């Protein structure tokens, strides 16, 4: 208990950061669960890779198009960077980005604490 208090006293920011990270992971898992419910599949896996071309962008719902276009412009970005451009909440963008990953349009790569989203352009066609 004493030890915990010390930790809280010394590193409140780090602890908050850790909580945020864990909440993000939970959020991602929730997104997957929502997709599973939608598709009714138990052995859920992301949809096969699909090109993010302009016709696909056109047919997307408005909220996802905004996120997808931002990634197209930035090339590779974190949810924070996308949120800065779209002026929407970071958590909202994180949800949309993960949804686009599940749909097969974006790729996700973790580097340390950060998760980067990008359009896969190699090994195609």
């Amino acid at each position, binding site marked *: 208990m004493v030890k915990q208090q010390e930790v809280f006293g010394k590193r409140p920011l780090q602890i908050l950061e850790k909580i945020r990270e864990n909440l993000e992971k939970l959020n991602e898992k929730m997104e997957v669960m929502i997709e599973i419910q939608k598709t009714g599949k138990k052995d859920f896996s992301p949809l096969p890779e699909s*090109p*993010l*071309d*302009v*016709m*696909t*962008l*056109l047919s997307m719902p*408005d909220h996802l*198009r*905004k996120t997808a*276009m931002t990634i*197209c*412009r930035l*090339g590779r970005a974190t949810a924070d960077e996308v949120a800065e451009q779209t002026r929407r909440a970071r958590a909202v963008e994180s949800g949309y980005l993960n949804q686009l990953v599940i749909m097969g349009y974006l790729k996700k790569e973790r580097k340390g604490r950060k998760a980067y989203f990008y*359009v896969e*352009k190699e090994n*195609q*066609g």
Partner: protein
Amino acid sequence: MIVLGAIIAVHSYKGGTGKTLISVNLAVSFLKHGRKVCLLDLDFRAPSLSSILKIDKAEYWLNDYLNGTCEIDKALIDISDRFNNEGKILVGLANPATEAIREISAKDRKWEMRALGRLLSLRNSLLSTMDFDYLIFDTSPGLQYSSINAIVSADLVVVASTLDTSDIEGTNRMLRELYDLFEKKTEIIMNKVLCDASSKSGRDEMQSKIKDIYEPPLLGVIPCYCDISRAGGTFIFAQEKPGHPFAKILDEIAAKIEKM
């Protein structure tokens, strides 16, 4: 607000609305103001810039740039010495050979996705690194990959429309279902308008008539000039006939864009 260093896509619903004529003359109008302009022919299905500028051969075409076989600087041709101006003008041409048109028409979605990436990266390579003031994309009409890729990459979409009923309906549909969806700043140029352009009352009547047709602000109204049809694309009005009303209207349009 468009600061210096902007990408303008000239688009239309139907063909023959004057996109290329507007693109070329707009580029020259900017050039006359000392700007560094890059004009790119993205109408790969019906290339026309090579013919208007009388350039038969190019070491590299824009087709090569989009295919990833060359960088953009290789596909640009400097034609500044044709004009006696302070500014600079470079052009990128679409390959007019039938084989090249056939080849680019058969590209798949993955290729188009990569082509979008190559067009988006022009902002960095041409506007930031090579210091161009304006990039002008002359596009294919209607809803097709090359033109939508250009629209997505642009800061401003200039839509050329005529008073033809099907053109008006189609343009209005594109305003709602294309430009708005991509949140693009859109301005309309009414071209080939039949009216009495010589009198003020004639021009006012025409302006009020057009205001009821389109919601977005009008960037300009160009009357139907027989001189333009007669010239048949053999010369550039903004350069060779700067006193012609058409060249003056394009100068006004360029000035409006500069102020945006």
